Structures are given as structure tokens and as C-alpha cells.
């Protein structure tokens, strides 16, 4: 992701710094800190986009972590903290956006794929079994005999 920063530096300077991201003050109350950490895991690091702010060393992620802790100490509920950030950065800031019709397609697609694959498979297998069950024509019968004889010959060989 730092590589990305280098590339983007030419066109746009994302708010990244090189901190490891552990130097900030943790909340003294472990229960609150745990809640904050859980929240951080669902919030997007806007600079690195596919990571949460919990696992990003971008500068902006650090600031957002700070805000999350601050809001929690101020007594905000989880929903209020989320709202605070959605207010500024839109639904985009939520890594796992609320289930909506747009996302339904994505979640249902694998199920659909499995169903389609299974149906196709059943249809094909049934059809082929039916075809196979059809009696042999005279010609096929003759060929079959020839093959069987040949195998017998082979089997007799030492």
C-alpha cells in the first residue's frame, strides 16, 4: 500500500504517513477499547480503500481511529460513531455496506451458480442415461461383439 502511495504521489497525495499505527493512546477501559477495535474493523481506510482503518498505517486511518476512540469515550453508541463517519464520507466508509438491492445480486449469485450447475448436471446425466438405455442397433451390436472378442483375446494372452 505504500507502493500505491508512491504511485499516487505524482497525481494526488493521499494522507499517508509511515507510522506503524500502534503508537496512539489506547483507551484505558478495556471494554471500550474492544468496542473501538471492533468498529475500526468495519471502517474503510479511504486511502487504501480495501482495508479497514484497523489494519492500515495510512495517516488518515490513524486520525479516524482517533476519532472513533474519542466518540466512544464521549458516550456515542456504535451506530452513532458510524453515522458520524458516514456523514462525512458516505456509505463508502463502511467496509461492509448495509445490505441493499445492489449488493443482493452479489450475495445471491454464488447460490444461483450452484443451482444452475446442479440442474444442468442432473439434466445432462439423465439425458445421457436415457440415450444409453436405448437398445443397440444391429451394427452397434456387431461392433460390441468384435470389441468383446478382442478383449477376451487380450485377456488370454499371458
Amino acid at each position: 500500500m505504500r507502493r500505491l502511495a508512491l504511485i499516487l504521489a505524482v497525481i494526488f497525495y493521499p494522507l499517508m504517513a509511515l507510522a506503524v499505527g500502534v503508537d496512539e493512546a489506547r483507551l484505558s477501559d478495556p471494554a471500550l477499547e474492544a468496542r473501538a477495535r471492533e468498529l475500526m474493523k468495519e471502517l474503510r481506510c479511504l486511502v487504501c480503500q480495501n482495508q479497514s482503518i484497523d489494519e492500515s498505517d495510512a495517516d488518515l486511518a490513524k486520525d479516524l481511529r482517533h476519532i472513533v476512540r474519542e466518540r466512544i469515550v464521549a458516550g456515542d453508541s456504535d451506530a452513532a460513531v458510524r453515522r458520524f463517519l458516514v456523514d462525512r464520507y458516505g456509505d463508502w466508509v463502511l467496509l461492509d455496506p448495509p445490505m441493499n438491492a445492489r449488493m443482493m445480486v452479489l450475495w445471491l449469485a454464488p447460490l444461483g451458480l450452484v443451482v444452475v450447475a446442479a440442474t444442468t448436471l442432473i439434466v445432462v446425466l439423465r439425458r445421457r442415461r436415457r440415450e444409453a438405455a436405448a437398445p443397440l442397433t444391429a451394427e452397434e451390436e456387431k461392433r460390441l461383439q468384435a470389441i468383446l472378442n478382442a478383449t477376451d483375446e487380450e485377456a488370454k494372452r499371458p
Partner: protein
Amino acid sequence: MRLKSLLPLLIFLGLAAVLWVGLGLKPREVPTVMIGRAVPEFDLPPLDGRTQGLASAALRVPGVKIVNVFASWCVPCRVEHPQLSALKNLPGIALYGINYKDNVADARAFLDGLGDPFAAIGYDRSGRVSIDWGVYGVPETYVVDGDGKIVYRHVGPISDDDLKTKFTPLIERLREGA
């Protein structure tokens, strides 16, 4: 040729079409939710050695205001500097700056060296006010209308082309509307 054998090709063609359209999009740009909203409440102090900071009140007065978030450590900010100077000279425009997480001495050297196009600069040392604006990188530039509403956001440096095709027409429209 049965449909069954044709299916992979059809799926691929659909995919290729999407990829083709996708090439023209900008996936990295974070959408902003600030358009149409009133500017956030803030009151930023001046950079040391200056008298005037920047507060939301200044953005609620009539006229077109432009707010540019910048920092001396940001290379693209240098790139867009000539365009900012040009923006400033457009009639009826007030150009303000928000200095993002900068070292004061560096910021002053930056402005002294390149020239200071801003009518006033707010010093956002912690970056918190910028977060209220929904800023996720520098430079970002916001256009505020006469009612104090944000009407446009530009991500990244303003190129000469952006100035001509995006900012100038927008500003003219806003001035005519006012």
C-alpha cells in the same frame, strides 16, 4: 452451433464490454457526500505570524468562494499552484486555503516561495476540520455558492484543463444564478 457452446463467448463479450467502459472510470476517487450541503461548522486559527484565520462564517457571505486544502509537503500542491493563482484573479471570487497538517515554517516558506494566492488561510494542524469536510487527500478543492452550500469538489491537482472546462464554467453559472 447450440446455445450451450455459445454461452462462454456471450459471457465473455459482456465482461469485455464492462471492462471497456470501466477503463474510462476513476475507481480511486472517493465519492463525496458534501455536495449540496452547507459548509461544516469550523473556526481555524491563522498560520503563526498571520492575523487572519478561516471560519465557516466567511463562507456564508454572498459570492462564489473556493476552498483549497493544501500542504507544503504535497508535491501536487506545487503543481496546481499556477492554476490557483489564475483562479484568484477571476472576478468575484474569494479563494481561501486550509493548510493541512503542516509544519508552520515549511508552510510559510511554501507561500513565500510560490506566492500566496489565498485571501485567508485556516491552519488545520490536527486535520480534524478537513475530516469534517470529507477530505481524504491533498490537494482537494471545494466550490461554495452564495448560500454557503458546497456545489463542487475537485480531487487532486487542478490542471490547466480542469480550470478551463470545470471551474470557469461552473463559476460563471453560479455568478449568473446569483
